[in-house]
């Protein structure tokens, strides 16, 4: 391995900010995945119920998850852009 590459790797290892950013992105991705799973589960339940109250409740939950995911994707894009810079 070239000295320059080694120094670059060492620098990355000691750079706490970069390390934190990477962990943040990983955690955000995991949360988005969990939200997606939850969304699918609720959508399945919604297709099975007839009760108006339950339908409304599931629709509300789906609407909330959609907005949360939208926010999450926006945050993720911002983080990725900052990482590139």
């Amino acid at each position, binding site marked *: 391995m070239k000295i320059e590459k080694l120094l670059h790797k060492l620098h990355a290892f000691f750079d706490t900010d970069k390390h934190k950013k990477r962990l*943040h992105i990983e955690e955000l991705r995991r949360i988005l995945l969990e939200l997606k799973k*939850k969304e699918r589960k609720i959508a399945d339940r919604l297709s099975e119920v007839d009760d108006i109250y339950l339908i*409304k409740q599931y629709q*509300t939950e789906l609407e*909330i998850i959609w907005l949360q995911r939208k926010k999450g994707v926006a945050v993720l894009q911002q983080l990725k852009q900052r990482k590139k810079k």
Partner: protein
Amino acid sequence: MGSNLGTTTGAWLIAGLGLKVDIATYAMPLLVFGVLCIFQNSKQLKGIGYILSGLGFLLLGIHYMKENFESFENTINLASYAMPGVKGLLIYTALGAIATVIMQSSHATMLLTITAVSVHQITYDNALALVIGSNIGTTITAIIAALGANTQGKRLAASHLLINLFTGIVALVFIEQFAVAVDIISAGLGIGAADNAMKLAAFHSLFNLAAVVMFIPFINQQALFLEKLFIEKRSNMFEPKYLDSSAMDFPETVVESVKLESIHLYDNAIHIILHTFGLHKRDLKNSEWIRQRIGQNKYPIEYDIDASYEKRIKGIYSAIIAFISQAAFTWQMTQSSKLSWLREANKHLVEAIKDTKHLQKNWTHFSASSNTAAINEYNEIAYQIAWHILQIEAIRHDSDNNELPLLSLDALKATIQNDDMQLNRTIEILIRERKISPETGSSLINDSAYTRSIKKNLLRAAETLFLHDNTDKAGIEQQLTLNETEINGVVHTVDKP
């Protein structure tokens, strides 16, 4: 007992490594890399740095002690002060205990003893007594710490003293048998008969192992004895339980104490709220059960909220506020902000009780009236509050299994908005159909606002008490939670026909 046994590894390290090789050679690189790591930004590297530096200083300390004991050999011979027989045993045991009390570290005494015995400055028999003494002396640290601790802390310190003192007496009485056992074990481990330092480490381990063997079968009896010796004050629901002055020394323990006390306050608060509507916590089973219990109420329910507030809330709330103000002055932002969040959570609980008090007046009046429509609406209010508390309890007890606990709260927030909207819509219909008078309707509208406020305050308190932590995950979840406008938007979108 476990920690006593674990601490013997230090003796093995000193006797095995510290005295056999020129450890000063290893100490310097450890110190250099340790100090370099300490100056890094990363917490992990800092931690590694402190470990390396600590180890480096330990090895260097052993080296200097060894060197200085060796230089004594030519000037003073400490071995000439050796005492044979029982007198020697008792005096050296006392010396070991006193040295440990002064240095506040049995490890330091062990280090001195092993180094001294390795250069023949003290006899092996006297060294054994010093080890026993150091094990007795080490209990003083726990005893000092327990002076300001709660009953559990005092019991723990007493148990430490009891175990170490009793094992010390047993070891002194059977010192010859122990010495023989050490010889046999040492021979089995390949330790030379003349290697007193390693034999001392083996004695230290054997002696602490004996304590484990002797005390494990009687652990329950010991616990009962200590419970009788240190009787815990009967816990009073109306007094602070966790605000111990001994917690004041560390920011983390202050935060934890305030959090536990706030949870105590939360439990008292929901007790008051539920009792106002003739319910108990045990009634929070499911939706049907709550409705059934509300239907079984005998009106009017006379519950003195003011008296309950004075008894169950005021004392604890004041104690929490006083504790926070005494504690939070020189701390880092993290702890201060946590305390500030907890203070807010307590404020929300008090506000929820105050709203319940406002609600109680009309609730008691209309629940006992002859207007069925008004009774139904007030019963619906009681049901909604109880159901909301049940939902919070579910989140509280299931937070470990919930992958996205903070984000799950948004659905509950939407339910609050939706319920409020539906309640107001029903009131309008009832007024229009003349089932309730406009005066009753206006009271109901006011009370629906109190209901919404009670629910919101309870949810905000619960969010801090049961879900907030300082992990990165919680911070990211927080970024994705919806604000009030967004939640209102969701509720209205779904409500559209």
